């Protein structure tokens, strides 16, 4: 073989391997999603949303408690996490723009996005479960909120930084104080971006299981009381999938299907908005 042929062959092999890797990645996506879809749809039934769980080993029943609980915890987490994140991001991008402290907090937030969520669960257990004496819904909501804060904070910071400085100057020139400039000019300019960050952060926490295991725990009864243990879809999936009954497994698949679809819709919507707004 001539040198050219060797070089060409080497290139061909390497590029084929990369193509195979990409196909492999797609293969896993299709495999996992397909599997969740097939098993999930098979087990999907209107009773799943309307009934509470049957006693272990008895057929039938649903996961109404878990659907409602998940919604409750996620909404409360959003109500705590989003304002904190948006305000924090505002500080970094506006009042502390360019200062060292803004840079430090921004880096710490980036690190915190990836801190193991189960560690946050143990932290909340020590702070909000142990002193109270029992698992409760608020603990779960706060744990999820802590995961949301850095995500929302970083997106808000980035999105506010994209708003041109001249726009603020125009508002200052009209005599507006800084808070008015921020709330009425900057926020409006960055609204879509912030909303996207919020959507993606909800998608992120909606699938979290580890921080709920020993905060909101689980509850086999329908309950709206956040001071008591609250069921969540993810913890229920964990419990049911590890359990011995076939109908538990089926319901776990159905719950997995619902939660995956929910998260994928949020994620895709978020990405479409970014694509559409910030080309």
């Amino acid at each position, binding site marked *: 073989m001539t040198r050219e042929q060797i070089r060409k062959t080497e290139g061909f092999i390497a590029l084929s391997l*990369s193509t195979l890797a990409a196909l492999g*990645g797609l293969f896993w996506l299709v495999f*996992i999603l397909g599997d969740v879809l097939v098993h999930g749809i098979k087990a999907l039934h209107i009773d799943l949303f309307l009934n509470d769980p049957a006693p272990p080993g008895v057929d039938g029943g649903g996961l109404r408690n878990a659907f409602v609980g998940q919604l409750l915890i996620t909404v409360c987490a959003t109500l705590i996490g989003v304002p904190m994140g948006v305000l924090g991001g505002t500080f970094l991008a506006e009042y502390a723009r360019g200062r060292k402290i803004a840079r430090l*907090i921004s880096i710490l937030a*980036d690190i*915190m996005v990836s801190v193991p969520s189960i560690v946050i669960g143990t932290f909340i257990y020590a702070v909000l479960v142990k002193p109270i004496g029992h698992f409760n819904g608020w603990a779960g909501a706060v744990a999820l909120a802590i995961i949301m804060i850095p995500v929302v904070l970083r997106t808000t910071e980035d999105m506010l930084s994209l708003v041109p400085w001249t726009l603020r100057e125009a508002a200052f020139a009209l005599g507006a104080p800084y808070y008015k400039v921020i709330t009425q000019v900057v926020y409006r300019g960055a609204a879509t971006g912030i909303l996207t960050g919020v959507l993606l952060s909800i998608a992120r926490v909606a699938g979290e299981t580890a921080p709920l295991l020993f905060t909101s725990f689980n509850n086999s009864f329908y309950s709206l009381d956040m001071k008591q243990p609250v069921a969540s879809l993810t913890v229920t999936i964990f419990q049911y999938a590890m359990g011995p009954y076939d109908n538990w497994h089926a319901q776990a698949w159905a719950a997995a299907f619902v939660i995956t679809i929910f998260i994928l819709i949020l994620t895709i919507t978020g990405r479409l908005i970014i694509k559409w707004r910030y080309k």
Partner: protein
Amino acid sequence: MARTAKKNPVDRFFSVMTAAAAFSVIVLIAGILYVLVSESSLAIGRFGVWRFLSSTDWDPVRQSFGALTNIYGTVLTTVLSLAIAIPLAVGIAIFVTEISPNFLKGPIGAAIELLAAIPSIIYGMWGLFTLSPIMSTYIEPFLKKIFSGVPLIGILFQGTPMGIDILTASVILSIMIIPFTASISRDSFNLTPAVVKESAYAIGATRWEVVKNVVIPYSKLGVFGGVVLSLGRALGETMAVAFVLGNNHRITTSLFDAAATITVTLANEFAEADSDVYLSSLFYLALVLFVLSFITLAVAKFFLLKAERKYSR
């Protein structure tokens, strides 16, 4: 920067609110560290630092605890999963940036990122119900047949393949971290200036030579940062491995054995710990994990920032 505006009382209030929210990040990190240390003080007092980290004991009955089996499991699954994920992820990044026709770049990139959006519990459950049987009936017996006779490597493939083991957990973990590594690598590759690549093509380099000799050297900082970031993620991943690792507090040499990671131990035992020392030791484990992953993530961030500075020059 609008200094005079700050005299407005509402503005002062608003700025203090935003500052408080921003500083909550620092407070939270310090708070987590403080609470974990104070909660594990009982275990720290009883087992010390070095003895806890180096002891293979995990015995709730005799109330003797050590972290080594958990750290071993964590490190082993993480290293294995990275070994599987890195080549695949870099391959995907090369495909998306250099090979694929333009109309495929968007969809494939989006698909890989969707893989990152799927919650870890779905991976875990899928691993338990779908991957684990496949591993135990096809892949693991196959690996065992090939490798168990080979000296040295052979010890990795001893025992009966059950599907609930280190290998299965590592494969699932690798599927989970491929998207992170791939998308950061892709972004880094994309930052290579077209002029540099074109110059290489102009002197007759093949496409692979451009990738190997121009793109990868140029973007290695970013790729390395992405790999370390994935490492940090893998260290703390709980649900994806909790289903398929078993919860076995022994140091084993075979990939077909069940094991325990720090996260799996926490997930399985935290709500059931029945004595103060037990609970305190679990907090101690959480502290070890927090410190370990925080340092890893900080290193990753350091390299990513360095890469960012380099590219923006």
